[in-house]
């Protein structure tokens, strides 16, 4: 790809952050009670001792204070709980932290009864996780500042969206309710604004309309249809979720994917990123009423999607991922065609986006609105492009590379955290991702696209825990599975990047004009169904 001749940067630029390669000693120091895992690898549950709650809480604070971030936090009922309902503790509480510097995933567990002192006041990133526990298992986090339903999945509880919203009183304060049904073909979600004239004082986001019970469906599995299910967790992140799930199954069955298959998977993941980022840039341009870029990017998004279709017949990479590799191989002729198409589409994206950089009215519109400061992004545990646009160099492809794949050389990041930065970041990631695609296509490993030994991937190891992180276009997708004595899933926890990031959007709107909300929303472009599961 001819990057140099077309690369054209606007006044606000993103920087390439080169974080040290994974493998440094953990910053927070090692902890004998916690289990250190590599991405996609399983470990026996016996290696995960049960901490006391006080120790657990202290460990979490220490690790998060030392720069780790919470990637999963979930509860599993104890087997004996049903027999003796009165005797606490009833649940195991699991936390998985990511140490981006060491490239390690730290897991720990503790026992809790029907309530425990809330961790949210100290660790804001856990606020939504604790609300889910409360809603799912009625485990009360005492002292949680904002305890409300998340997905409204309790049939005895209130209907979706029925709750008291944060409210500001005053003669001149007015409330604007948007959704759950929106203008345009998008998913359902409710937004409640407290406004003083045009200024937004507070935004509360209420989701849950797309709750399908994905995690409950998976418990007791692995089902034969687990991958088709995973592909629909968030339809636009098909490759990311399927990749994470395959990695988990391979980890639990202690097999390795075929290197060729793993590279084709990585290619599908990048094509998904390219399509979605291109579409997002076009949508941002459309929201400010700048039609040329909007129209060009709409077409180019289709070009990227068609490349996925050339590999596997589906524009969204459905059916491509299978445990052990991919269902479709890439013959050399197709690889050459794809290389040309990637170069051509990347050049066209540059041309289309250059119109944005060259239009002062567009740049003025994008700059300075929806600012998410670095400190807030860090404490909310943001991931993906919004985190990187706010100056957090978080990319699982760099810090937690998947098995058989090289770590990403550099992370694109910006430091302003406004809509313009999120747009520039997407553009930079498109260029980097297109270059990555070229590299993958150039040096595809030889061999079959599926693992040599057609082992039963559904025969997973009993009493194990495995964690898989895949950096999708929207951010890091985290899947955690626990197996029971007979090798069935005792729990399967999915954390979509949207789950971390919705709170960031609500924060970014504070003090902004309400008419800027659609643009800020588009610059985050979060998933409703990925959050609702």
């Amino acid at each position, binding site marked *: 790809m001819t990057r140099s001749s077309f690369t054209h940067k606007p006044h606000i630029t993103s920087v390439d952050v080169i974080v040290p390669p994974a493998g440094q000693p953990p910053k927070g120091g090692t902890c004998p009670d916690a289990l250190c895992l590599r991405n996609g690898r399983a470990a026996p549950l016996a290696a995960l001792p049960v901490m006391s709650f006080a120790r657990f809480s202290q460990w979490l604070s220490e690790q998060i204070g030392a720069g780790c971030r919470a990637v999963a936090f979930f509860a599993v009922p104890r087997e004996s709980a049903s027999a003796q309902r009165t005797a606490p503790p009833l649940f195991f509480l699991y936390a998985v932290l990511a140490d981006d510097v060491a490239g390690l995933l730290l897991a720990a567990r503790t026992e809790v009864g029907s309530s425990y002192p809330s961790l949210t006041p100290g660790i804001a990133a856990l606020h939504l996780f604790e609300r889910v526990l409360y809603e799912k298992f009625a485990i009360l986090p005492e002292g949680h500042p904002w305890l409300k339903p998340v997905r409204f999945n309790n049939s005895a509880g209130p209907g979706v969206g029925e709750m008291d919203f944060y409210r500001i009183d005053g003669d001149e304060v007015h409330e*604007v309710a948007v959704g759950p049904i929106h203008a345009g073909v998008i998913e359902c979600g409710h937004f409640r604004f407290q406004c003083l004239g045009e200024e937004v004082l507070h935004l509360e986001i209420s989701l849950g309309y797309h709750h399908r019970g994905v995690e409950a469906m998976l418990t007791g599995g692995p089902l034969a249809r687990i991958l088709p299910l995973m592909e629909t967790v968030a339809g636009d992140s098909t490759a990311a979720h399927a990749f994470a799930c395959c990695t988990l199954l391979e980890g639990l069955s202690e097999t390795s994917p075929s290197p060729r298959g793993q590279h084709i998977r990585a290619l599908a993941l990048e094509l998904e990123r390219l399509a979605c980022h291109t579409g997002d840039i076009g949508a941002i341009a459309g*929201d400010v*009423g*700048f039609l040329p870029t909007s129209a060009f990017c709409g077409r180019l998004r289709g070009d990227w999607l068609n490349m996925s279709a050339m590999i596997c017949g589906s524009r969204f990479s459905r059916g491509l991922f299978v445990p052990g590799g991919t269902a479709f191989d890439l013959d050399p002729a197709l690889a050459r065609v794809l290389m040309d198409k990637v170069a051509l589409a990347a050049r066209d994206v540059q041309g289309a986006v250059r119109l944005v950089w060259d*239009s002062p009215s*567009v740049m003025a519109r994008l700059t300075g609105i929806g600012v998410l400061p670095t400190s807030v992004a860090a404490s909310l545990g943001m991931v993906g492009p919004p985190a990187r646009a706010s100056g957090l160099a978080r990319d699982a492809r760099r810090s937690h590379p998947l098995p058989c794949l090289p770590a990403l050389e550099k992370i694109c990041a910006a430091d302003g955290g406004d809509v313009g930065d999120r747009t520039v970041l997407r553009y930079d990631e498109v260029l980097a991702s297109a270059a990555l695609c070229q590299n993958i296509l150039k040096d595809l490993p030889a061999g079959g696209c599926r693992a040599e030994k057609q082992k039963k991937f559904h025969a997973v190891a009993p009493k194990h825990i495995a964690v898989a992180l895949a950096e999708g276009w929207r951010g890091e997708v985290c899947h955690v599975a626990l197996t029971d004595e007979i090798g069935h899933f005792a729990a399967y926890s999915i954390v979509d990047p949207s789950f971390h990031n919705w709170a960031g959007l609500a924060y970014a709107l504070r003090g902004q004009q309400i008419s800027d909300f659609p*643009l800020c929303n588009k610059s985050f472009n979060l998933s409703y169904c990925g959050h609702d599961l």
Partner: protein
Amino acid sequence: MTSQMIVALGGMLLSLLLAPLLPGCTNRVKAMMGGRKGRPLLQLYFDLCRLMGKSPVYPGVTTYFFKAAPTACLTSAVAALTVLPFWPVAAPANFSGDFILLAGLFAMSRFFLILAALDTGSAFEGMGASRDALFSALAEPIFLFCLLLLCRQAHSLTLSGMTTVAAGPAAIQGYWMFYLMLAFALFLLLLQENSRIPVDDPNTHLELTMIHEVMILDHSGPDLAFLEYAAALKLWIFSLLIAGLVLPLPSVPLFDDGGSLGPHGLAGLAVHWGTTLLAIFGVGALVGLVESLMARLRMERVPQVLAMAGAFAGLAALTLWRQA
């Protein structure tokens, strides 16, 4: 009825017939700039026909005001055409001070539209109404100021007598800067009054960012057709006004001494009307060009556009001062 009146009414009829073509022209330019084929030029005609065939649906909470707004808007737009001449003949109804009526008719249509929006009790429509009220309150004095300057320059208190066409090329001598600056100020007002980019985005589906579109969200069927048609007429009226300012057409006597339109006059009329129509669609294309080349402004910057319109009107006034 004199032939002069017949020609004036003919011009008005032409405006009523061709007005829905103007948004089509703007959209076609936008589509071409975006590399798209775009919707048909006659799309608004199709939409109006389709809407007229439907029965309206009224929100349960609305009252008489909601139903009155479409009629009031369309009436005021048609009434505005009676005082605005289709150059070069005088308007069907022209009298001293008719330009104030023009501004008043715009205000009336806005008043009813705002009432109808508030009538629905929707937060979106309330916000749209509040934005529209604010921006038009800023725009209206500038609009009147522009018209007053024209009066001063043409020494005439009617719209029919105050433009370059009426005055003839001789009047422009030395004043072309005045007319150009006024035309530019009016063009900015056109963008604001007709909810075009950079002030408003006529194509957006995002209720939180809309101004005009959000106020007609709850209207349907013939009511919506009335509002869409009235909006097209308003765009036409502004374009016609600007065309009248920038076209230095020679004023040929169209009517002979008996007051009838001879063959010579008929040819002159055809040339004038053809040029005027070209200029109107030129303004429509210019709107499309602006919409393709720039983004919509942040809501809080819209008053700056109006301030610029005011500044240009002020500069035009200064040129008059110097000449005087």
